[in-house]
């Protein structure tokens, strides 16, 4: 089933929520494009309401897209028939944020893990218990506890079960939507380690959605920053973190607290940077980079280095990329 090109290819993905009770329709995801290579992690960061979760759900076809294309393993997902899509789900899985609500409260762990196996008939019925035990070991849990219910486990253990369920059918691609944000710091580190080792062992690709930029730094090969439904920056993690090109990215990075008292104190003592990012205006006329996209018909996207792009939307008034960019 392998096809040339990236494992996942998202092009101009749009999601519009219909108008409701007098409110105009909302464009939650606006022409988002990126690729994910096999065995790699793309970190998708942004604040609440930026559209990052909707993007993840739209890629998994849990949310209908209003435009654009999502190709996984060379197959177009957006136009797929329902039955084909269900079969395709064995290649793409989902790890949700809240391990307390994403497991069926009245099903045992064994039942939870067996469900995907039965749905996709990936192992013969009599081998299911064996595979369930294998999955438990894979995520670092004791196979003896499979007959317990989710409420008997801690948050970290539950998240391990959620991960085991996602891996049951040997997927190629997993969307992790804030997989550790509901957990304690030490548990977060353990789950991140687990996701790492699973990636290496199984050559998984992740779309890792999170608002915590420090966690994303630890897991992602490449990083995409979302704001107002659009990607504002996309590039290798090292480049985006060390030389952010978009003022919004810089603002996000500046806000992350540093666990070092002296430096964090100095940071808090500085005047609060609260730049106002302009809305969707600037669709006509020259952009901040001086290019008129409406006239030239080019996408509003600028390469600042190979594989490191930045959007010319959402810049604070008066900001000029030329002045701020050279921090490379």
């Amino acid at each position, binding site marked *: 089933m392998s096809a040339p090109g990236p494992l996942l290819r998202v092009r101009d993905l749009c999601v519009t929520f219909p108008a409701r009770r007098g409110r105009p329709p909302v464009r939650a995801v606006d022409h988002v494009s990126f690729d994910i290579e096999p065995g790699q992690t793309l970190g998708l960061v942004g*604040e609440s309401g930026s559209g990052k979760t909707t993007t993840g759900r739209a890629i998994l076809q849990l949310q209908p897209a209003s435009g654009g294309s999502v190709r996984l393993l060379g197959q177009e997902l957006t136009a797929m028939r329902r039955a084909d899509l269900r079969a395709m789900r064995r290649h793409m899985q989902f790890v949700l944020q809240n391990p307390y609500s994403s497991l069926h409260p009245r099903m045992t762990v064994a039942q939870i893990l067996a469900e995907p196996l039965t749905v996709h008939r990936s192992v013969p019925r009599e081998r299911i218990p064996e595979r369930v035990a294998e999955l438990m070991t894979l995520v670092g849990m004791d196979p003896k506890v499979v007959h317990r219910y989710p409420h008997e486990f801690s948050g970290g253990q539950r998240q391990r079960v959620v991960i085991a369920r996602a891996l049951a059918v040997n997927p190629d691609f997993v969307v992790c939507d804030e997989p550790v944000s509901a957990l*304690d710091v*030490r548990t977060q580190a353990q789950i991140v380690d687990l996701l790492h080792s699973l990636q290496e062992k199984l050559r998984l690709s992740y779309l890792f959605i999170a608002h915590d930029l*420090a966690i994303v730094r630890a897991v992602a*090969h*490449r990083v995409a920053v979302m704001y107002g439904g659009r990607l504002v920056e996309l590039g290798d993690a090292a480049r985006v973190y060390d030389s952010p090109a978009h003022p919004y990215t810089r603002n996000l990075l500046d806000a992350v607290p*540093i666990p070092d*008292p002296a430096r*964090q104190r100095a940071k808090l003592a500085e005047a*609060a940077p609260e730049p106002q990012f302009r809305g969707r205006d600037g669709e006509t006329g020259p952009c901040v980079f001086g290019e008129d996209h409406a006239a030239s018909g080019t996408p509003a996207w600028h390469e600042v280095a190979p594989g490191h792009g930045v959007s010319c939307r959402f810049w604070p008034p008066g900001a000029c990329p030329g002045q701020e960019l050279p921090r490379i």
Partner: protein
Amino acid sequence: MDDPRALLQVRDLTAQFNRDGVPSRVVNGISFDIAPGEAVGFVGESGCGKSVTARAIMRLAPEGSSVAWGGRILFRGRDLLRIEEREMRDMRGRRIAMVFQDPMTSLNPVMTVGAQIDDMLCRHAGLSRRAARRRTVELLGLVGIRDPALRADDHPHQFSGGMRQRVLIAIAVSCQPDLLIADEPTTALDVTVQAQILRLLMRLGRELGMALMLITHDFGVIAGMVERVYVMHGGDIVESGEVDALFAGPQHPYTRALLAAVPRIETAGRTT
């Protein structure tokens, strides 16, 4: 040991829950002091007893449970665990105020935010309606809400999460309390909003001369905000000290493990 200058002296505080008839201890006799105007941090993971400790000072039982307190909580020499409920009600809000994690559920959705602050001022500070509204507008301005006179007439749903937390902070500081307890005040907020709220708390502490008890699981949040830190684990204070010394040389293995687990944005990550 007993520092007469202390604003709050907690001695051998215990808290015991009664869950389905089975008693379980969540705070095991902890002692600590907070001086007037001092900022103190409490760090620990969920279930370590840090929030229960904070609620003990407010003498509030966590939702839907009964709890038996033990020990002493001396606030300006009065033992908060032993005073009459009437006196305690007066303490809450007026002398000791609290800000919670979730700014979404802590406000009354059917009242304008201005009316909610007015009420607080009329009840605790004995202001007239008109004087209360003047002070409300002042407070909303103080916590960084633009056009406070107009926004006072808005309902909570018209505010973003960060703005609601600002409103809650305005309510908390409305009577100029001596101690502000902030229990994970930024956990539910975005990182840029978190930075703004932290700056706000710091500024208010300084301007109003309030002591701050900041409770969080995040060492990054604690780092720049407080002078002293208490690390809690399993209902005990396992380590305490000046913030710089504690970050530079944590003594207790649990503190070391917690600090090591904090993700750092500057550590080089993975490469393609």
